[in-house]
């Protein structure tokens, strides 16, 4: 699929130096700065026809070869009319792990962003209900970060025991 039209619209709107592109196999990716992500997604949705949000995910590049930033957030978009797929990537570093929520654009972003928050600790401003979704509410760590061990830090052994007398 040619992405020439999409890139043309993005260049007109943002300027050619505001984003970079890369391609691998059949994935075409656009890399933007974290402050530009919402504007880019809005432009892609309303002007370039990418009406379905396929996925929002994140990755922790702490031990990745040749990585410059720690967290990457990836938005997978789909244009239903042309079948074109596009991936918008942005990179975040501590302590500034905030992005604007894509909920105003796509209601499906709700639970996807909650999971990214739950697993990585990346906050989404403007999200209606940003709380943990998969882990219990009182969990304190962010499990999918690379510095969190596979077997956990003993949370499973430290459940408070409620005896029949107390309960």
């Amino acid at each position, binding site marked *: 699929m040619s992405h020439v039209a999409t890139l043309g619209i993005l260049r007109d709107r943002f300027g050619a130096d505001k984003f970079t592109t890369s391609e691998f196999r059949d994935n075409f990716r656009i890399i933007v700065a974290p402050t530009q992500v919402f504007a880019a997604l809005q432009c892609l949705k309303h002007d370039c026809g990418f009406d379905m949000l396929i996925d929002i995910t994140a990755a922790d590049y702490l*031990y990745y*070869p040749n990585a410059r930033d720690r967290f990457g957030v990836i938005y997978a978009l789909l244009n239903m009319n042309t079948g074109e797929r596009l*991936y918008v990537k942005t990179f975040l570093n501590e302590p500034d792990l905030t992005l*604007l929520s894509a909920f105003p654009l796509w209601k*499906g972003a709700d639970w996807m962003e909650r999971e990214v928050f739950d697993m990585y600790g990346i906050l989404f401003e*403007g999200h209606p209900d940003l709380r943990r979704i998969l882990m219990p509410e009182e969990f304190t760590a962010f499990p999918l970060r690379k510095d969190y061990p596979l077997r956990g830090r003993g949370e499973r052994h430290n459940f408070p025991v409620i005896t029949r007398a107390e309960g």
Partner: protein
Amino acid sequence: MPVEAAEPIAEEAPEKEYLWTLNFGPQHPATHTTLRLVLTLDGETIVKAVPDIGYLHSGFEKLGEDLNYNQYVAIVDRMNYISPVANEVSWFEAVEKLLGIELTPRCKYIRTIFAELMRLHDHLLCIGAAALDLGGYTAFLYAFYQRELIYDISETASGQRFHPSYLRVGGLMYDIDDAFVQKVRSFVKGFPKAYHDIVRLLNRNRIFIERTRDIGVLSKEDAINLSCTGPIARASGVVRDLRKDEPYLAYRDFDFKVVCATAGDCYTRYLVRMEEMLESLKIVEQAIENLPSGPVNVDTQSKVVMPEQLSTYRSIESMIQHFELIMPNRGFQAPIDEVYGAAESPNGELGFYVVSDGTERSYRARTRPPSYIHFAIFPYLIKGHQISDVVAVLGSLNIIAAELDR
């Protein structure tokens, strides 16, 4: 930009004290598997439903960073455990795209047969469980007998009924034999009778129609905005099927239709799934009759496939390759990049976003789970309906908790 506070919940205002909260808890026979709904009710009408998930969270994605591409297939099997091989097909779509492997024709046909058999498997369970939840026990048993036959077919191919772990990078675990072909043929011959039995039981059943028609209506704009894919979206008018739009495996060679509808209620989703079963049966029939011969695994020159066992005793190259693949810290030379690959699983678009750091383990293996995305639409569908409709809507969404929570 300041963070916007969440709107104060109108239902908790003092004049709304007649609303009461019901916990449709994780332990409930009608929630297929452990998921929890906190329902705010006005009499029997639901005003608000808040799902609460995470009871089955097992850290599959964290395990994906610890297991290599061939080992992770056992985990992927267990995500949508109702259609195991379909998950493996999606996983290997992503992984083989990353590694740049082109499969042999025979392997593509066998994977297609399995993917379609698993579509039948999943739809039979969804329809059977939907009928069971609404009180129709017989349809459930008819559907489950057909599923037993598919379990037999899985066992013939790989030795395991439920989670075959049959696919490998570049090919399959074992090639199929004549017993498999005979079993598939006899299944294809016997399925239409069971299908028509279920149709006679449910399609014009007054109780079934009254309980599912106009319940849980999903409009087309909502389906696109909420990222729905699969039969749920197709029943709302979204004409999108990855088997036709982005053909993978051997789907280009087969003649089948994509089933769509416009009404978007539970009854329509049931009808879409029933028709899709017939289309899948057509594909299985065409595939099993035209199965190409030849090797099932990719050429051993590409260094991703295990060599034949006897050849490891006889030739040094085979032994070296066996060593390279089995020993840790050696193995696949994957490119250092990331890729997203998806396939049309029975529930919708199941995709994997694989980030690779060059070793034989993925650095990050993200599952794009259709059940998770579809459960998020539940509060929108159930507003204004009654408690008994919760069961009908949940049944029609086909939520599998293992894929929901991973």
